[in-house]
């Protein structure tokens, strides 16, 4: 019995030690990410018409956010490709081509990382005044739903196409990694209404496992793990699918936060 107690105490101590060790490394990585972010957006863009200031005046904050948002949209409109704007103030997600809104969707729910409150506010406005570039993506659906068809050798082999299956059977969840380090998670809202709830849980779980693996890999070699602030967005399945399929590989994304 005594040995059992000792074993229990040692296990508990080890557990606390490991958890503290991991937490410390994670917090160090968060600090590093804040420093890197502040450093990356420490100076105004070339030919900036206006220099952002740090202020507690809510009306000036609102104006600066609005200015940054319009600026970023304008920059995104210079590109020929389709871009996405995420306005968290009025909960809208717009697909745009050359500044024209081609589709507008309601953001059903969202979760912003507190990272945006922890970084230098001027650096944040500077980041928001330029579109983010998508650098990578993971998804439960194909970006290009290509079907391969081998041509018939002659007319005897030819069969006319059947009506395509257009039912939305696949769960729609995806992650965009962006140039600023922010990761945007898109989930379909109300997945439990269909059979997509389990698929969403699996998608989210696999992402957490991947992050956990990266964390173990880094901490086991006494390196700081990479920290990526997250924004989690819930959209209707149709809207989520439309947005994912419409955006090109290196799409521009504009954010309006605060």
């Amino acid at each position: 019995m005594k040995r059992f107690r000792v074993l229990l105490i040692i296990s508990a101590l080890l557990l606390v030690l490991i958890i503290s060790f991991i937490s410390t490394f994670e917090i160090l990585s968060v600090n590093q990410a804040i420093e890197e972010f502040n450093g990356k957006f420490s100076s105004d863009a070339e030919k900036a018409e206006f220099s952002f200031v740090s202020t507690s005046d809510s009306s000036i904050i609102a104006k600066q956010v609005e200015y940054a948002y319009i600026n970023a949209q304008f920059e995104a409109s210079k590109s020929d490709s389709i871009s996405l704007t995420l306005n968290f103030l009025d909960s809208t997600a717009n697909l745009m081509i050359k500044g024209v809104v081609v589709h507008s969707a309601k953001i059903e729910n969202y979760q912003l990382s507190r990272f945006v409150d922890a970084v230098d506010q001027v650096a944040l406005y500077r980041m928001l005044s330029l579109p983010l570039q998508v650098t990578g993506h993971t998804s439960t659906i194909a970006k290009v739903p290509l079907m391969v068809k081998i041509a018939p050798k002659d007319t005897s082999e030819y069969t006319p196409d059947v009506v395509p299956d257009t039912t939305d059977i696949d769960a729609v969840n995806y992650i965009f990694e962006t140039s600023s380090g922010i990761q945007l998670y898109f989930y379909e809202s109300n997945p439990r209404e269909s059979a997509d709830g389990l698929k969403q849980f699996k998608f989210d779980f696999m992402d957490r496992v991947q992050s956990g693996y990266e964390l173990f890999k880094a901490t086991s070699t006494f390196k700081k793990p990479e920290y990526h602030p997250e924004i989690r967005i819930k959209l209707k399945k149709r809207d989520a699918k439309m947005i994912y399929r419409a955006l090109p590989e290196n799409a521009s994304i504009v954010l309006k936060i605060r």
Partner: protein
Amino acid sequence: MEQVTDNNAKVEVEKKRPVLRFFIGLSITLTSILLIVVFVLYALSGIKESYLGMNKNSAADTASLNQKQIAKLDNLIKKNSQKFYNLTPSQPYFIVNTTYNRFKLYKNKKQIREGFCSTGSYTLLKSHDKRQWIFKTPKGLYKIIGKVTNPVWRRPDWSFVEEGLPIPSQNDPIRWEAGVLGDYALSIGDGYLIHGTIYKRFLGMPVTHGCIRMNDEDLEAVYKTLDFGSKVYIF
């Protein structure tokens, strides 16, 4: 006799003890590992967020704006908003959604019509002579560069390959087919057309070779509303 039985039972318990210990040790180890995994997967993100919440960067008035600077900011917002608003054409334009095969027609910046259409099927057709075609509708901004009534379709090579037919010469009259594109066709370049269809039951589905098919009434409205140079937004 009773004492002998007691001793036997004690021996039995003594024998089982190492097995019991092993299982207790194993369950403690497994529980610890499970706790660490659950912590890393689910609790750690909460800890990071709590830490960020504690480190909230309260905005300091490093350089408060004077009235002149505020007026400048207001003017910039107004000027850029106007510039941005002007990007939306006041001339009629057309939007096509290739994911759900819908269209919207705009005039004076207001939607005047919407409905079903058919766009590219995303089929990759492979021929036996190693040629291949992808049947998709291109995305982005296009302009109307041609308008015709009673269009006649000139069948491209893939149309014959797809049906297992021999490919005729470029000038062979067999390539020309009337009546399959509806009453009107509008060209957006690179051989892509907005046209009618005899396969109306497929409207709202991705079945075309890249063109945009519409029903007769919608096509007529689009043809009469859009002019040369009108913008077509495809996403």
